[in-house]
């Protein structure tokens, strides 16, 4: 279990994490979702003991990461965002070192190395130097080094960045398997689709704060099953807002001279009425994108900006 209680971390005058609280339970995948710079990696750094929190508390399986650091780290597995491997060494040698660093000894270490090589599909290349591996293989080995000691708590910091689709699917399966085996998994990502398909619980962070949290269903409910309509073109914001006011249930999330974002139920059926109203207000619509309710639309609703910005 991971308990994060009013976590705060500042670097000089910069507040990377302002106030983040959440609890992740064994057997579940908890997603920390947010754009780059939202404070996800800093949060992971505080949980893994790399950074000392400026305020608040973090407990891993009941151990405070500041006061009982070694005990907390003993049950922790970390898969960092950057590939953190010895490139001159083989997969087996890397696993041997990282397993040993986590306190595993032979014959258990040998057995675990065999197992993780098999589940990551690297057994055929186990003796080759890592520098000969493809990007996807390195990612898988990076993951294997984080789980070789069967951690009760697993931190995954954007583990699929830059990974080919095949390796990505495989990695996500591996993450699910860890949760099914009883591990508490904390997964950070800025890929909405990953979070939607993978996570049981989610916290959406922005500017170092949790702006929404809950299960996927709970978060979707915040959108009230409304679609998200993005219109690009040339608009006069005030005129456009006035023109769209009669459209039933439409909420204008963003309106500027080139972009208009609306949340409204059954948007596809109401497109003709919207286009007519905007044309009457002197707007020129050049593009339209309709999105079903999703985390992405929720994020846009909550922050007024796209997740990948």
């Amino acid at each position, binding site marked *: 279990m991971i308990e994060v209680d009013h976590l705060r971390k500042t670097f000089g005058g910069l507040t990377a994490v302002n106030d983040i609280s959440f609890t992740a339970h064994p057997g579940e995948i908890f997603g920390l979702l947010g754009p780059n710079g939202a404070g996800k990696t800093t949060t992971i*750094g505080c949980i*893994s*003991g*790399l*950074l000392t929190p400026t305020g608040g508390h973090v407990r891993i399986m009941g151990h405070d990461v500041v006061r009982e650091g*070694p005990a907390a*780290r*003993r049950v*922790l597995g*970390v898969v*960092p965002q*950057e*590939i*953190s*491997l*010895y*490139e*001159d*060494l083989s997969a087996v*040698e890397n696993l*041997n*070192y*990282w397993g*040993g*660093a*986590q*306190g595993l*000894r032979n014959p258990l270490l040998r057995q675990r190395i065999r197992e993780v090589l098999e589940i990551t599909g690297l057994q055929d290349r186990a003796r080759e*130097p890592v520098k000969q591996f493809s990007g996807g293989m390195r990612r898988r080995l990076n993951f294997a*080094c984080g789980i070789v000691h069967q951690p009760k708590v697993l931190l995954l910091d954007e583990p699929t960045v830059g990974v080919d689709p095949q390796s990505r699917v495989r990695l996500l399966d591996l993450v699910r398997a860890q949760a099914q085996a009883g591990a508490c998994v904390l997964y950070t990502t800025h890929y909405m689709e990953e979070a939607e398909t993978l996570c049981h619980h989610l916290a959406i962070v922005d500017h170092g704060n949790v702006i929404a949290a809950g299960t996927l269903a709970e978060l979707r409910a915040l959108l009230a099953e409304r679609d998200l309509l993005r219109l690009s073109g040339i608009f006069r914001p005030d005129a456009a807002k006035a023109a769209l006011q009669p459209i039933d249930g439409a909420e204008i999330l963003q309106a500027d001279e080139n972009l208009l974002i609306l949340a409204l139920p059954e948007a596809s059926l109401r497109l003709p009425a919207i286009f007519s109203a905007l044309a009457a207000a002197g707007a020129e619509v050049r593009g339209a994108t309709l999105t079903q309710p999703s985390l992405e639309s929720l994020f846009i609703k909550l922050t007024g900006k796209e997740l990948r910005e």
Partner: protein
Amino acid sequence: MHFLAVSLRKDWARTRRDPFQFLVSLGIPLVLAVLMSLVFGREPATPRGLLLVADEDNTIASTRMLEAFHREPLSKMIGIEKVTRDAGRARIDRGDASAFLLLPKGLQMAFLLNLPVQLQLFTNPTERILPQMIQETLSITVDAAFYLRRANFVPPPNPPLIDLETAVVRENKPARSFAAVFLPSMLFMGLLFIASGAAADIWRERMLGTLRRIASSPVSMASYLVARVVFVSILYVVVALVGLVAANRMAGMPVPNLPAAALWIAFTGTIFYLLFLWISVQPATQRAASVLGNLIIFPLAMLGGCFFPFEWMPAWMVAIGKLTPNGWAISQFKAILDGTVDAGRIAATAALMAALGALAFLLTLRRLRRGFAV
């Protein structure tokens, strides 16, 4: 202990896979040693000696005694330097010349009046051929004086009244061959380069992200650092044994006490590593760390007797060089090779170096914990 074993295995595997860094550290001094040997090997084969002369008579007779040394081929082989009696004696005792000749006051008068007189020659025991040549030449000159008296129909004294007394000064300083003087410097230059290269690996670990990963494991930074230091120490023991045996067998460098010499190399090399490690983790970038390391290593090697031996350096530079850690280390190493180790002195040097190493370890650990590893 388990992590130490795992870490040593990892470091050995990394060194084996990428030996270039290590070989370059050893290769630079080796290339220099070969080049220096070539330079000295091209010198004329003719030996060159120095005869110190204290001419207290300062007459025609005393000048004529040395005439042979001013003619070729002797003039090319033996230089003459006029000194006082005391200075000559002091210098020959230090082994600064091939021989010291004392021409006493009244030599000419004794020759003319047929009175007994004695010339004194002190020879350097560390040289074999040149002192013997000087002695032979002076014997012939003394004989010539005898026959000169005879040619002048003056009845020669029997035995001859001019007597050449030769004494070999007590050997108070062991002889040092080129290898004995030069190779320790090269060996210690290698130690400095290995230390610098091994210390730079902390930046490779940082860039690989492995340092960050170890910081999030249950292994403490202190254990990680100790494991690195132990590996480097073992590496130094291997380098010391191989280097000393090779220097002894291939270049004739005397190694009377191999275990002590190897131990000293491993100990001092480890201290150099800790000092360079501390220097490496100070700058904010890998490039700055590399520049800083180079800025320090070359002057340190040159001043501290790791580029040119102290024996070849001017006295003022030696005085500075002997204040550097490598200067302390190399001086004691030469004492081990010479068999002239002073237990108190080497213990004091070891204690000082150990204190420096411990301080560097603690400061490096502090830096690793305060952000470098993250």
